[in-house]
C-alpha cells in the first residue's frame, strides 16, 4: 500500500452518541440516538426543538474553561492517549493545534450582556474568560504546545477545514504533530439562531429522507492526532489512517443557501481526489454532511449522485450526533476513520423514504464495506464546501 499524506495515530470524541470513540461507535452500530429536549439550555418558545447533548457530564477540570474548551480537552485527552503522547513525549516535538469552532469564538456571554445592558456594571472577568478560551489557544496553552496554533471559524465546515490546514502544516514541515479537529458546545445563541432560520426540526432529524423537517443541533468534540510519517515511524506508533486529500472551495452564491448545482462541493471533491492521486471509483464510502435540512440534503445528495452514481454507500452520522457545527468535521472524521478500520458503516438513523429531490439512498442498516479510501463532506453557511479524503490502514 502506498503511504500518502500524513498519518492519523490517535482519535478522540465526545458527543451525544458517547464520550469516547468506542462508546460512540457502539451507539452508531446499534442505532441508538440520544435526541431530546435541551437540558442545559432553556428557551421560551411555543414549540420544543430537540437536541443532541453530549452523553455524560464532563468533569470540570478547570473552572475558567468554557464547556467548549472542556469538550475539546476531553476528546484531546483520549486521542493523545491512543497516540502515546504524554506530557514528556509532547515536549519532544513541535506540536501544532488546529481546531474548528463556532460558539467557541464568539463574544456572546448572555448573562454578562444582560447585566451590562441593565446598567449593572458586571465584572469583566467574563470577557477575560472569553479571551482565555479560544479553542486552539486553550489546548495549546494547556498542553504547552509550541507549534502553530489556529482556530478556524468557517461555520459548519470549521472542523474539516482545521484538519485540512493541519495537513498542510505537516506537509510544509511547520511542525511534527498536530492536534486537529473541532469542538462546540450547545448554546442558546445557535439554538435560537437556527430556529429563526427555520431549519431546525421539531422531531429527530432524518437526513436525506423525503419528509425531513430540518436539523437538530448537537454538541461535542472530535479530535485526530496527525503526524508526519517520519515522526510516527520514529515514535513507533501505529498508524490508523492517512489524510490523503483535502480541498475547499466557495460557492460565491448566498449567505445561507448552498449553490443549487453544488459547484463548490463538486470542485472540492474533485480537487481532493486530485491531491490524493486517486480516482473517484476508489472512494469506498462517503460520510455526508447530511444535516437533514431541505437545502443541504438536496444539493449534497444530487452532487454525490451525479459524481459517484447512487450506489456508493453514504451515511450521515449527524443522525446520531445532531449538527455539532464547528465540531462536526472533527467528529465525522473520527467516525469515518473508524468505519475504514471496521470496514463497516452504521445505518443513517431516521431515514425511511427516498427523496427524488436528493437522488440519494443513504445506509438503512449496518453494512459491511470494502473500502480503502473514504470521503467526508462539509458544507457551511457563507458557501464553503470542503472535502477530506482518508485512507484506512488496517492492521
Amino acid at each position, binding site marked *: 500500500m502506498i503511504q500518502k499524506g500524513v498519518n492519523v495515530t490517535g482519535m478522540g470524541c465526545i458527543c451525544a452518541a458517547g464520550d469516547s470513540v468506542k462508546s460512540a461507535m457502539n451507539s452508531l452500530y446499534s442505532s441508538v440516538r440520544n435526541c431530546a429536549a435541551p437540558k442545559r439550555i432553556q428557551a421560551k418558545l411555543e414549540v420544543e426543538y430537540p437536541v443532541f447533548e453530549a452523553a455524560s457530564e464532563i468533569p470540570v477540570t478547570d473552572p475558567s474553561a468554557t464547556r467548549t474548551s472542556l469538550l475539546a480537552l476531553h476528546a484531546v485527552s483520549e486521542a493523545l492517549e491512543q497516540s502515546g503522547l504524554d506530557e514528556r513525549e509532547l515536549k519532544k516535538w513541535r506540536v501544532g493545534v488546529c481546531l474548528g469552532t463556532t460558539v467557541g469564538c*464568539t463574544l*456572546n456571554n448572555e448573562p454578562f450582556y444582560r447585566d451590562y445592558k441593565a446598567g449593572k456594571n458586571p465584572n469583566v472577568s467574563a*470577557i477575560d474568560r472569553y479571551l482565555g478560551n479560544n479553542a486552539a489557544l486553550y489546548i495549546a496553552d494547556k498542553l504547552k504546545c509550541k507549534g502553530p496554533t489556529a482556530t478556524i471559524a468557517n461555520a459548519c465546515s470549521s472542523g474539516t477545514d482545521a484538519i485540512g490546514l493541519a495537513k498542510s502544516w505537516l506537509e510544509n514541515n511547520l511542525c511534527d504533530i498536530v492536534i486537529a479537529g473541532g469542538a462546540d458546545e450547545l448554546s442558546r445563541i445557535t439554538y435560537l439562531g437556527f430556529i429563526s*432560520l427555520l431549519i431546525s426540526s421539531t422531531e429527530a432529524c432524518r437526513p436525506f429522507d423525503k419528509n425531513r423537517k430540518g436539523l437538530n443541533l448537537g454538541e461535542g468534540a472530535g479530535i485526530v492526532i496527525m503526524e508526519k510519517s517520519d515522526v510516527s515511524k520514529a515514535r513507533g506508533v501505529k498508524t490508523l489512517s492517512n489524510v490523503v486529500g483535502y480541498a475547499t472551495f466557495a460557492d*460565491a452564491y448566498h449567505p445561507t443557501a448552498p449553490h443549487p448545482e453544488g459547484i463548490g462541493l463538486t470542485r472540492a471533491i474533485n480537487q481532493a481526489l486530485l491531491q490524493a492521486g486517486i480516482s473517484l471509483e476508489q472512494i469506498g464510502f462517503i460520510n455526508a454532511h447530511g444535516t437533514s435540512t431541505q437545502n443541504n440534503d438536496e444539493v449534497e445528495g444530487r452532487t454525490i449522485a451525479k459524481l459517484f452514481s447512487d450506489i456508493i454507500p453514504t451515511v450521515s452520522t449527524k443522525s446520531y450526533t445532531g449538527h455539532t457545527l464547528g465540531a462536526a468535521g472533527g467528529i465525522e472524521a473520527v467516525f469515518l476513520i473508524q468505519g475504514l478500520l471496521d470496514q463497516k458503516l452504521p445505518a443513517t438513523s431516521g431515514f425511511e423514504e427516498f427523496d427524488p429531490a436528493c437522488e440519494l439512498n443513504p445506509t438503512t442498516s449496518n453494512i459491511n464495506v470494502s473500502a480503502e479510501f473514504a470521503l467526508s463532506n462539509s458544507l457551511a*453557511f457563507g458557501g*464553503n464546501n470542503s472535502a477530506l479524503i482518508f485512507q484506512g490502514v488496517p492492521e
Partner: protein
Amino acid sequence: MRLAILGIGPVCALGSGIQSLRTGLQGKVRPNIEEKIIPTSHGEKMLPVYQPVAEGLDRFIPKRALRRVDPFTQIALLSTYLAIEDAGIAFNDKSRVGVVFGSGYGPTRTTFKFLDNIIDDGDIGASPTHFANSVHNAPASQVSIFLGLTGPCSTITCFEHTLSNVLVTAWDWLNQDVVDYVLVGLGDEYCDVLGFAAVGMNAGRTKDMQPMNFNACTFLPGEGHITFLIAKDKSHQEGYAKISEIRMRRDLEEVKASISNDPVIINASGNLQQGKSFLKVQQKQLKSYSNLYGGFPTSSAFDLAVGCVSMKDRKIYPVPESQKKEVKLENSIICLEFCREDEFNIYKLE
C-alpha cells in the same frame, strides 16, 4: 516561495485607502479618535477610541445591495475593493482567487444586536439575518459572494496568532497552485462592550496611546480592516514588497538572532504585558505606529502595511509624535508581533 504584496486596502482611523495610511505616516493627517462614554461602578468615564473613516464603498457596490450587510462586513468589503483597485488588477479567472480573513472578535456589534433581539423581544425575536451576519466568517463569505470569487475561502480567529496563520494559509494555497491570487484580510470591530471591558482592564488612563512607553498602560481600542492582494513572487512585479519569511512563535533568542540590523516594526499598543517582552528585545531600531490606528487583535496587519509602504517609499517613517526625521531604508524590514510572554511572530519584508 516568497509572497508578493501587490495591493493594500487599509480602512482605519486615518481614512480609507493606502494614501490615507501614507499621509498618516507623514504626519499630515491625524487619526479619528472619538470619545466614548463608558459606564463604570464609579460613574461614567471617557474612553478615546480610534474609529475608522470608511469612505467610498458606494463606488464599488450600490447602496441597495448592501441593505443586509453589517458595518463590519462593509469595512471588510471596502478594504477588499480598495486593495484590488490599488493593485490595478482585474481577475481573469475568479475561480482562482482565494479569500482568507482573520479577526479576533468578529462582527461584535451584530453579535450583540442578536442578543438585543432576544433580550428585548424574547426568544421568538431572534433575527436570522443578525445570526447569519454575526458569525466570524460572514465578512470573508460576503467578499466571495460580492466579487464572485469561487476559490477557497476561510476565516481564522486566534488573537495573536491570526495574522501569521492567515498568511501561512495564503502561502499554502499559492504553493499548491489552487489559486493565482489571495485576498488576505484582517480586521476587528469596536463595540461598547469591548470599551467597557477595556476600561475594566485598566485602559483609557491616558488621553493618548504611547506604544513606545513600555512601562505604562496606555492602550486605547481601535477598529479597522485591511486587505492585502497577494500573489506568488515573480520577477518584474509591481507592488510593495515581498514577504520572505514568516516565523511563528519564536522565543527571545531566536528573535534577537534573526532581526540583526534590520529596522523592526513592533505591534506594541500600550499594553504592559507586551511592553515587558518588547523591552527584552533590546534592539535600537524598534518602532511602533499603532498610535495611528489604535489597539485591536489584528492591528499587527496594519504594522505589516506600514512595513510595505516603507519598503515601497524606501524610507523609514518617524514614529508618530516623535519629531524625528525620515531615514533611508535599505533592503529589508522586520515586523515583530507579540504572541505571549517572550514569544513572537517574525515577518520579514524585502
